[in-house]
């Protein structure tokens, strides 16, 4: 149990996908201007990360590994994620229109989001099934890691949209207007996350 908590907290704070692993930078810079769109995008990312892991992890363990088809991993995962996103969109549109209204617009953007493909590949890499672990334990670790990564994305997005609203309307040097000042702000935001390094291990030591 402690191990799962460590995985969760490390994924949120230490190995934060956006701020220390540089995955999912495009939506981080593109959709973080307003708080509500930042929230919507991150909720959609959490959702897709969870279902993508739930589908790709068993595919890797029961299909690719036994058949020695590990080299098809990238191609299979990206296609599965793309199809899954489409499917989720259709299902949401049909059965949960209210949720589709708030998350729907962000779903197609997620297909080519490297954070989602990244989390699925890292999960099968970091939490493999071997003699020491059963499928269900590896699956639980992967799901917790996906949840943590998604929450970390959420945290970074929400924090950063706050930072950006503070920059808005300030007098910025001409050549720094737009992206450069946003990146500088991102640098300072990610600096704050450096402080978490090494904490989690000692929390339970």
């Amino acid at each position, binding site marked *: 149990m402690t191990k799962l908590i460590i995985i969760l907290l490390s994924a949120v704070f230490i190995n934060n996908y956006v701020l220390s692993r540089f995955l999912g930078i495009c939506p981080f810079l593109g959709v973080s201007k307003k708080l509500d769109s930042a929230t919507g995008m991150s909720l959609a990312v959490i959702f897709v990360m969870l279902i993508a892991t739930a589908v790709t992890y068993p595919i890797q363990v029961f299909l690719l590994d036994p058949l020695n088809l590990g*080299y098809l991993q990238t191609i299979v995962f990206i296609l599965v994620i793309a199809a899954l996103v489409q499917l989720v969109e259709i299902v949401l549109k049909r059965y949960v229109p209210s949720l589709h209204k708030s998350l729907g617009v962000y779903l197609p953007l997620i297909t080519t989001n490297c954070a989602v493909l990244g989390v699925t590949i890292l999960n099968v890499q970091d939490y493999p099934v071997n003699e020491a672990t059963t499928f269900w334990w590896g699956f639980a670790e992967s799901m917790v890691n996906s949840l943590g990564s998604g929450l970390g994305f959420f945290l970074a997005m929400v924090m950063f949209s706050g930072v950006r609203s503070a920059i808005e309307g300030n007098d910025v040097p001409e050549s720094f207007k737009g992206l450069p000042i946003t990146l500088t702000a991102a640098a300072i935001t990610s600096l704050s996350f450096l402080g978490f390094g*090494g904490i989690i291990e000692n929390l339970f030591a």
Partner: protein
Amino acid sequence: MKDIIKPIAVLGVICLVVTALLAWVNIITSPIITAAAEKAAAEARSEVLSEAKDFREITDVKLPEGVTAAYEGSDNSGFVIMVKSKGYGGDIELICGIRPDGSIEAVKTLSHSETSGIGSKVVDNATGYRDNYKGKTKDDYSDVDGVTGATISSKAYKKAIGTVFEAYDILKEGAKA
């Protein structure tokens, strides 16, 4: 009708061709990849335990958590133990050779994600930190001083060495019996 079949057919054919190509490349490269990985592992093993000519992987003994692999050197030349430990930025993997008298011959870092310039001083041996463990035994390895400014990486490294000795004790018992 044609509008539905054609896209599916084209996509299917592209998938098949790409998969076939990948299988072909895989057949060519996979022996090279395995050979390269084995060669690198063998080199690392001889580097930390130079006496041994040959190694036998030990798989039938239950070893402490964190130990990823253990090898026994030929002609009672000692043991090589591979350990994973959590550092500042992620896992540190190291390989350590222990002589029959229970002292460390050498330690080598296999992989790490410590901060470059700070924690990397510990794992990359920039300040000679790693060499300080040479010749240490179970009783005096904890005397090695950490690297200033990189407390967490140093602690993680020391903890990994502790795990190495735990595993060594178990292996020694096994070898006697």
